[in-house]
């Protein structure tokens, strides 16, 4: 089996973002960037499946500007075999990304496509489901457990009510939850080795896909601030405040 894993470069999850004063977006200059966290889980799962002898090749792909290639390089350092970087300027909407991924799937013919369930920058939670629709493939979203069985996957999905298990036929799309696995760290020798692994560069404009934006971001602003609270000295005071001041119990 061949697994294609899509990764996205985002502002690191530990960074407290700042909104630009002119309201056009958030500050990204000189801000630490890293791979979208659940995309790391997607890579880890693909590599584990390969290590278990159930997949032959893991290909990491990113769609983004020049520096997005770092995320593919990181995937190569933890076990992906080769990379693809579809180069675009600026940011694309999930619909455009899924159309690009569809073109790559047509060319690469993977059996499975993995990616994180949601990117922590735009919080859209769309790309996997959209790709799955465009390909008319089954989708297993929010996966916290994957069992590969011949040409089927049994996937446990995290849903609001608890857990759901489905069985999907390959080829299929899986979007990964953070609880799917514990992503490994890249060792220094593997980081060095990854530098020799090939990354194919493709210009998005050569794919013949309409990636023009459909949405206009009119304004980005800070959310309303909460007013500062107080510290209470002990539990008795806390309960009195909740009862008599906040009147919530």
């Amino acid at each position, binding site marked *: 089996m061949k697994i294609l894993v899509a990764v996205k470069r985002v502002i690191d999850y530990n960074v407290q973002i700042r909104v630009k004063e002119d309201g056009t977006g958030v500050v990204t200059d000189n801000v630490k960037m890293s791979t979208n966290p659940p995309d790391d889980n997607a890579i880890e799962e693909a590599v584990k499946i390969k290590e278990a002898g159930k997949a032959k090749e893991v290909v990491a792909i990113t769609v983004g500007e020049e520096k997005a290639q770092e995320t593919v390089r990181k995937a190569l350092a933890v076990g992906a075999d080769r990379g693809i970087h579809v180069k675009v300027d600026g940011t694309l909407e999930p619909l455009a990304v899924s159309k690009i991924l569809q073109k790559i799937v047509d060319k690469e013919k993977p059996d499975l496509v993995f990616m994180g369930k949601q990117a922590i920058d735009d919080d859209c939670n769309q790309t996997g489901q959209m790709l799955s629709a465009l390909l008319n493939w089954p989708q297993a979203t929010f996966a916290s457990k994957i069992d590969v069985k011949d040409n089927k996957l049994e996937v446990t999905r995290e849903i609001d009510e608890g857990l*759901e298990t489905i069985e999907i036929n390959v080829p299929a799309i899986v979007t990964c939850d953070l609880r799917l696995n514990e992503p490994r760290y890249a060792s220094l020798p593997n980081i060095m080795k990854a530098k020799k692994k090939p990354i194919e560069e493709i210009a998005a404009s050569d794919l013949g896909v309409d990636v023009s934006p459909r949405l206009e971001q009119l304004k980005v602003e800070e959310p309303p601030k909460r007013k500062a609270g107080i510290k209470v000295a002990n539990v008795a005071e806390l*309960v009195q405040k909740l009862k008599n001041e906040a009147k919530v119990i």
Partner: protein
Amino acid sequence: MAVLLIAEHNNKELRPFTLNAATAASQIDSDVHAVIIGQNFAEAAKQLSELPVVKKVLSVEGAHYENFTAENFAPVIVKLAENYSHIVCSANTFGKNLMPRIAAHLDTSQVSDIIKVISPDTFLRPIYAGNAFATIKSNDAKKCVTIRPTSFDPCESTGGSAAIEKVDASEEFSNTKFIKREEIKSDRPELGTARIVVSGGRGMQSGDNFKLITEIADKLGAAIGASRAAVDAGYISNDHQVGQTGKVVVPDLYIAVGISGAIQHLAGMKESKVIVAINKDGEAPIFSVADYGLEADLFEALPQFMEELNKLNTIQK
């Protein structure tokens, strides 16, 4: 053109967030139709027809719809979409799973998880775990919108009498098979709609220790929440997770116990009306959003909290 609301239900009754999504739909256009898809859901369809904001109910029945598989739902909604300007549903796991599949078929860029309808084509939505709000205008002819249910009040649930019209089922998608659903049954209020939520984090140190939280939740008639750290550590099941990738809650009172307050947790609870933080680390970020902070060891504070609650003559439910 009217707005099409996708009803969420369990084949017996409507799920409560359908009422919040209906409110959002009615703010886009007063002409709201609702589609209900499933198997043997007569009572849920009746409830839907009684929502005064819903002008017409479309009912699609089939055995392959019983488990709400997106691959089966999307084609029938895409077909209906012809007659509508907007497709709307809740941004919970049901809607998140389904709506992008519809949007891609319609070649529409979806607007996810909106918290406000500014105009029929412009919406406010949180990005970066709620640390920024973006105003987004959609230029697509048809708009696919998921709404954050806790940002809209539920609509009235009685008084309407919309006609229920049957719609032909679509074909079954054979490459996805439902196996089982493990729902955690509880007598407590639902996390998403509870008036009070008591949440535990890594500081709880074990699943057993969550009984300290359970006791207080029972006393207050509260739902139980948890941070991702507590779920990852196996202290409690995933359906309790509050945060960027879990549930978003907006209770009147949110009590965070042993939760440090990582960005991703704050994303799920910082709109709560009153926030209490109990943590022994006085520098924990959770205190920056807390109305009442108590710097204390939770293993001493929680039993005392229970004692103080027992002393009260009355407790609001």
